[in-house]
Structure formats: C-alpha cells, structure tokens
C-alpha cells in the first residue's frame, strides 16, 4: 500500500494488502488454466477500472473544465461572449448530443420516425467533429513530425552522431540504402524485381505490368533494373529481420522485468508487511 491511503484505519490497510494479494493470485492463476478464480479476478479488476475511470473523467475533466464554470454562472447564456459560447456552451451541446444519441443508438431502432430518430442522426455531428480533428491531426502530424524530419535526416549531408573512426559517408549511404530497401519491401513485398512485377504497376500480376514496363525499354536494361530492385529489397528485408530479432530481445527484457517485479512483490513485499509478520508469528506459536 502506498502512503497516499495512509489516512485510512489500519484494518483498511490490512484489507487492502489482502485484497491486492488475492487479486494478484486470482489473475495469476490464469497461467495454470482459465479458471473460475482467474475470471473472478478479471471481473473485479474491470469493474474497479471502469469505476475509477468514471470518477477520474468526471472529477478531473468534465466537472472542472465544463460543468463547474457553467454552474458557477448558470445565467451566462443570456450574455454569453463568443469565447464562452465556443469553449463551454457548444461543447456542452455536442457532449449532450453524443450522450443522448449514443445511448439511443444502443436501443432498438424506433418503429416510426420521430424525436428518437432525430437524436440518432444528430449524434453523428459530435462524432464527425471528433473524426475530423483526428483526421486533421493525423495527416498534419505525419507530415510535420515523421515524414519531413525523417526524410530530411535520411538524405541529410551533415554528419550524424556516428563514431568518429568510421567513414561517415559510407554509413550514410548504408542508412539510405536500408531505408529505401525497407520502403521497397513494404510496398512490393518479397517478390520485388520478379518478372511481371515492374515498378510502374508494382502489385499487379496481370499482363499489363510487363507490357508497360518492357514496351520501349531494352530487355537487358530492364533485367538489370529488376535485379537491382530485388537486391535492394533483399537488403531492406534482411535489415528488418535483424531489427525484429533485436526488438524481440528488448521485448523479453521488458516483459521479464514485469514478471520479476510481480514475483518480487509476492516474495518480498508481502512477507515484509506488518500483517504478514503478525500472521507468521502466530503460526509459529509466538506473540507478535
């Protein structure tokens, strides 16, 4: 138990310790089989998680940012400023539409058109705004935060933070080759450079590809080009495999740390608690 719940009575501290241990053991029993206890632990965890999130969203987001200012001045709609309208009243309207429409969508569709049908339709408005914002930030973020900086870095002529004893031009060239190879692999797959898989219509296996690629081009040139493309893709693919191995090893380090932390909790933190010491002393026949 953390010091943040220290103000509670001692019995609650002990109960928290036992509950934590019980939930851990119940969920951990999944390793043997998906049993009644494992399910019980999972349902308790989900119930507590949902409840905690409701309280958090209400007390940390909706109440202080929206409802408290509105309740503090409930008549503000009569002389509302543009800022207040945009920052408080409109989000409230959109949120209520989302709640009303969302809850309505969970019910059976109405037999006749009416208010419920209208509510269902209006629920699309906040969803559309949210979807538009997500779409906008995804596109602009991808361009500003990844595409442009990473492309710039890939073709940058300035020295990177490489080791001083290695020829930086060679490393930069290798980096560029691998990055390009991975992109070719992601686009064309392992069949890049195979006959009928020309760059003009990479995914197509119809006869259009070879015809378009080979129409006005010497056969030798085309063969060499496809061979180089295949070689380049092969380099990218192997670099990806190597990266996958390294990522797996890092995944092992990450997940083993989680397992070890739990084992440490069970083997060291629990036995060190006052409650455990008391129980242990009683079992051994001595006093606390």
């Amino acid at each position, binding site marked *: 138990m953390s010091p943040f719940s220290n103000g509670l009575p001692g019995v609650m501290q002990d109960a928290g310790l036992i509950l934590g241990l019980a939930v851990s053991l119940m969920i951990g029993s999944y390793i043997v089989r998906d049993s009644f206890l494992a399910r019980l632990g999972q349902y308790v965890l989900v119930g507590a998680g949902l409840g905690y999130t409701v309280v958090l969203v209400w007390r940390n987001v909706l109440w202080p940012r929206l409802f408290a200012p509105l309740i503090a001045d409930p008549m503000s709609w009569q002389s509302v400023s543009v800022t207040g309208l945009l920052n408080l009243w409109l989000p409230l309207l959109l949120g209520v539409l989302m709640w009303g429409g969302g809850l309505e969508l969970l019910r059976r569709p109405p037999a006749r058109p009416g208010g419920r049908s209208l509510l269902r339709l209006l629920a699309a408005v906040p969803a559309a705004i949210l979807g538009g914002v997500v779409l906008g930030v995804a596109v602009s973020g991808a361009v500003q935060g990844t595409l442009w900086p990473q492309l710039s870095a890939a073709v940058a002529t300035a020295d990177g933070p490489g080791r001083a004893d290695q020829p930086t031009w060679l490393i930069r060239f290798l980096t560029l080759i691998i990055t390009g190879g991975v992109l070719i692999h992601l686009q064309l797959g392992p069949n890049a450079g195979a006959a009928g898989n020309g760059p003009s219509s990479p995914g197509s296996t119809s006869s259009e590809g070879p015809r378009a690629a080979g129409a006005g081009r010497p056969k030798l040139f085309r063969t060499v080009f496809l061979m180089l493309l295949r070689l380049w893709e092969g380099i990218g693919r192997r670099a990806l495999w190597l990266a996958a191995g390294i990522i797996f090893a890092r*995944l092992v380090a990450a997940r083993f740390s989680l397992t070890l932390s739990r084992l440490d909790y069970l083997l060291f933190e629990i036995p060190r608690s006052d409650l455990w010491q008391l129980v242990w002393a009683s079992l051994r026949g001595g006093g606390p």
Partner: protein
Amino acid sequence: MATSDCPHCGYGNPISAQFCVQCGTIIAGQKPPSVSSGESANEPDARDDDQESAPPLNGEEGPEQQPSTASSDPDFSESRPQLAAAEDETDEDSDGQGAVRGPSQAGPLLRGIGGLLEPADPLSYIMSGSGANEPTVDRPIAPSAELAADEEERRDLRRLFSEELPTAVGAVPEIVASVAEPSQNGDGLQRRFWLEVILLLGMAGALLWWAPGPPGGAGPHALPGLQQAHRQVDTLQPNSLVLVNWAYDPATAGEMDLVAQPIVEHLLQRQAKLIVFSQLPGGPATARRVIARAEASLQRPSRTQITANLVIEGGYLPGGSASIPLLGVAPARALPVDPTWVDLRERFRIAELGEAGPALTVVIAARAEDVRRWLEQVQPLNGGTVIAATSAVVDPSVRPYLHSGQLAGLVSGWDGGGAYVRRLERARSVEEQARSLRHAGGLNWGVGILIVAVLLGNLAGLTERRTP
C-alpha cells in the same frame, strides 16, 4: 441451421460466422460442408424481442448475423461492409473461382499513384492485411495450387502450435503423452504451461537464492542516447519548467518505474519545476507514487536541495492525439483550471508555458506510439527539447527520432534505468541495491532458460525435418 465446420477444430459454426466460436480460427470464406437437416439457412430467428441488446453468445447468432434482419435494415449493408464482402468471397470460393488472400499473400498498401483515387476501406486492411475487398482493384487470381499451398502452410502452423516438446532431447514419451490433450483443440500454447512454470520457478529461485554479488564493473550497459538525456537534465537551471508526459500506468509499472524514478530524481535534484500530466486513466496516480518515492530517495543525502513542492499535477487529459496538440498551442487551456488543485502561483507558472514553452519535455512511455504522438502533435507546435524514457521494447522503434534530432536523449529499459542511477550523485540504500541485484539475478536466469528453450525448439525443428 446451416453450419460450417471449422478447419482447425471441426466445430460446427453458424454459416455467417467470421471466426470459429470454439477456437477463434478465421473461417470467413470457408465453404459450408454441412447443412443440418430440417433447418434452412434463411431460417428467421424467433428471438426478435431479445435482439435489442443481447450479445451473441457461443453457439447462437447475434442479431446482426441474421439474414432477415440484414435485408430489412437499410443501414445494415452500410455498417457491415466487411461481412458482406466476406459473404461475397464465400460465394466465389464455392464456385472455385475466387481467391481468399491470407496474411501471407498480403498485397501492397497502394498499387501505384492511381491507387490514391480508388475507394479505400481501412477495415479490409485490418481484417485481411490487404486490400482484398476492394472491388475496383485488379486482384491477382491465385491458382488453386497456390491456395492449397497456403492452406497447407496454415495447417503446418497450427500443428506447430499443438505439437509436443521434443522427445529427442530427453523427454520421456509416457510423461508427454500423459499431459497431452487432443491435438486438434488448438490451445497448444496453454499446454506449454510446464515450460512456463519452469521459467517462473527459475525466476523465483533466482530472486530468493541466486542474486549475483554487487557488480564491480560499470553496471548495466548504457545504450546510445542515455548520455545525451543525462546531459539535458543536468544542464537545467533551477526552477526551469519541465513538462512530463506520464504515458504509462500500473500495467507496465514493473519495468517503467525503474526507468522513470532515476530521471524524476535527477529533475528534482536540479530543482526543476515539473508539470506532470497523463493520457492514461492510471497515469496520474502512478506518477504520484513514483514522484513520492523519488522525493523520499533524495531527502537522505541532499535534503537541502529540495526547497518546496516542485511538482504541479496536470492530471488526466482524454482525447488522445486529437487533444494533445493543445499542449503545444495553449498549455494553460490543456492543464487543469480547478483552483482547488492549482494555487495562483502555480497557475502563473502554467501560463508561462504558453509564452516561453517548457525548458524540457520528458516523455515517459511504455509504447512507441506515445513518443511518436508527442513528436508529431506537440513538438512541431512548440519546438521544445524532448527526451524520452521508454520501455526496452520501444527503444529500436524511436531511435530514428533520436538520429534526426527530434529526440535529444533516450533512456530505455531496466538497463537504461540502472545505468542512469549510477550517474546520479547519491548513495543508494541497501534495500535499493538488494532489489536491483535480485532483478539482475532473475533476468539472468530468465534469459538463460529462454535461450535453452530456443535451443530446444531448434533441435525439435531439426528432428522433425529428419523424421519423414
């Protein structure tokens, strides 16, 4: 009722099911081999009263899977394009002319520039790994032999999941047979429980008895990027505003606490003013606990350095990537406004963020997605310096950002946290040292057992290849 036998476990599923209700195998596109007598495929479901909200249970059809409902509801065909496409594919396959493209046959995302103008269905990428359901794309017609080969490959994969451990390396066949379950039930991974139990026992034993002695050398290896991260924090002026994006919760705290705590300690040591927020519900509470431990650790050797409460709780920010740019353009609006949490002095500090931006941003994340989100959505707006403290597995994925200069430093994993601790100018308590040694011992044994398992797996593979 028409049923379709699962190719994996043989369970008879409803014809419209996408997945086997018994083992989860994808069965969309399978030819229905059996139709129960006395039942029609278009038999109307009698449970209309219950279709309002009852979730489909095992062995019964959900409301959206009823053909009669589907045909009567105009919204149905729009909301279930994937199902309709899958049913189309089923028809094609039954004629022997269509081709279901499995993950191994995933095509490219776009076929040329012209693909930009083709209608997109992102669900098809999620469901099949390729644009298999696009009507306008010229799909390669796979020959039946290729389809059969693919199916054979999938069967091999299933067999591998259900196979027994190698008998060639000393396992007793009788024991293996006694714990074996029918090989067609598909939960081979669960039947490996004793391999997992060996791992658990090895780790637990290492924690209890086999912790290594105190390392005499340089300790864990510091991967590139750690030194830069340390320098960024070390050069902070007292009272600098530091924004901390706490992107992990108790689920990953077992690892992430080991990375986060030394950095928080260092920031407090430099008397930086931390503004901590999180986009995960469990984030703020996790942050409070780690910060409290960091403060407790610091108070022993350098109590005088801690002048006042240096932490402002920014709380929880929902909205994901759609709301986080607010921290780049108007941090004062994103961070809490409730006067009961944030006193006037602190609100002035938050307001400063909007004018000058943070001196440093620390993203403490268990997923690469959170680091990328910050670098895509906030850094382009405020141009601030960012360092990342991440889970070990995130390291390779965010390293390009370190190389491009978007990240000014990177600390990852247990080893990164351990290397960072050694750079802090403070003595570690006995308990801290003991815990760190236990962790190292457990990791040693865990990785050792894993390497042995990998060797056994490869031996088993070789044995299988030699056995006709």
